[in-house]
């Protein structure tokens, strides 16, 4: 089952896919652009992985001191940075390199503490798509990646659907694809995750209690490129969802 959280006509609703757009729980069928899409579940802790695809590590290797054999690179984000499908993300004026990151988002459904990898998948509720923007101009080498790069308002796009884990027989065989203005710029497959989902749950739950609603953003493959004001960025994971986002400038924000 796929579910979304949307706002329509003054209220929040749970929606499911319909051939003509979306269908609300009360029966109303609406075009996709007639609702406001929110992140598809109540998000708890946002756990993000850096450098979790071998090709992306290679892509960035000139500026990095890590190898694929290092401990997973984990950082936390706050839910305040989240927006939904069809939202807008601000690109600050004067920035030289802002890029998307298409990522499989793993949603925890059951408390996990010191869970071994063989039991890990039982704690997964489902999956969605994340576009985890970064503004690289602001990178500093202190607790990197620092929050000004990765935790900006509107910089974490999540959705459109929460897909039940039961409907995704192999989450390690999913095609990821990003297009900017219709041109494919990034492709990958979750088969190439350095730390796969059970490994991540085992690692994380070894020092922190994972709770229902927590989400693990599993990292992005090779192929991140700069995006500009006006660009339409679509991050898609086949079978999970197609997440649309538009880059806007400072002006709508009065800056």
């Amino acid at each position: 089952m796929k579910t979304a959280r949307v706002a329509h006509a003054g209220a929040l609703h749970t929606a499911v896919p319909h051939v003509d757009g979306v269908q609300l729980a009360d029966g109303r069928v609406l075009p996709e652009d007639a609702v406001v899409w929110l992140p598809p579940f109540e998000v708890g802790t946002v756990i993000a992985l850096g450098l979790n695809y071998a090709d992306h590590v290679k892509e960035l290797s000139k500026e990095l001191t890590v190898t694929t054999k290092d401990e997973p690179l984990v950082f936390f984000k706050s839910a305040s940075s989240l927006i939904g499908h069809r939202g807008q993300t601000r690109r600050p004026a004067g920035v030289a390199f802002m890029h998307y990151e298409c990522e499989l988002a793993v949603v925890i459904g059951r408390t996990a503490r010191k869970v071994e990898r063989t039991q890990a998948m039982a704690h997964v509720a489902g999956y969605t798509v994340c576009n985890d923007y970064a503004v690289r101009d602001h990178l500093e080498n202190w607790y990197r990646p620092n929050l000004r790069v990765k935790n900006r308002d509107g910089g974490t796009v999540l959705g459109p659907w929460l897909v039940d884990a039961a409907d995704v027989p192999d989450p390690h065989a999913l095609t990821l694809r990003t297009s900017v203005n219709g041109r494919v710029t990034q492709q990958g497959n979750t088969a190439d995750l350095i730390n796969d989902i059970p490994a991540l749950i085992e690692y994380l739950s070894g020092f922190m209690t994972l709770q229902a609603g927590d989400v693990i953003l599993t990292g992005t493959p090779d192929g991140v490129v700069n995006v500009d004001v006006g660009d339409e960025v679509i991050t898609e994971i086949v079978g999970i969802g197609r997440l649309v986002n538009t880059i806007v400038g400072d002006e709508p924000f009065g800056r």
Partner: protein
Amino acid sequence: MPLSSLQIDVPPYRLSGTVIAALLNDPAQLDALGKAAHEPPYKAPPKGPVLAVRPRHTLAADGDDLVVPDGEEALTVGASLGVVVGRTVCRADDAAAMGCVAGYVMAAEVAVPLASHYRPAVRFIARDGYCPLGTRVVPAEALPQPESLAVRIEVDGTPVLTGTTGGRLRGIARLIADVSDFMTLRPGDVLLLGAGHGAPRVRAGQTVTLHIDGVGRLHHRVVAESVAGSAGASGVPA
């Protein structure tokens, strides 16, 4: 202990669970790094605020045990002033920033000692229960000089550190201004001003008590992970 069960009862404020800590906000902490702050991997001292999210699993209450992971010898425990946001704030300037402060709360910053500041190192600084918060928010109007408060830490009842909430690289107003430039702060969010240099090391079997005058006190036992048992220090329900 989950945040919802903490007795934060200063209406209409509540702790939302978004806690952001300022790290390396005491000039003495960077001074202690010396030339290393200019060398790889850092290459240059930090320009912006050094920040870390403290998610809900890190939150703990006064009296909760602090757990030393198996294989580690000690923890560092620092005392930080927690600044509780009471009004939505985005792009505040220094002058406007203080207007969003609802009050102040005690906070502790617990970590497994780690020499490097290069990576987020969440396994060392964001384990279950490593961000205890006090049970009382002191209203801002009751604390007109929040940056001249005495800080004291005792280990097993013996004073080991005295300091102040002042002298930070970024004081409260500047920290709010710099953070709210890129992320909107909301009522119930908490910014930790940051522990001072010299946070003491504590070992399993010891107790640590943190005081900030006028704000409150946190008292914790330090226990070994193998003793803490399967429930863990955070008390998160299974």
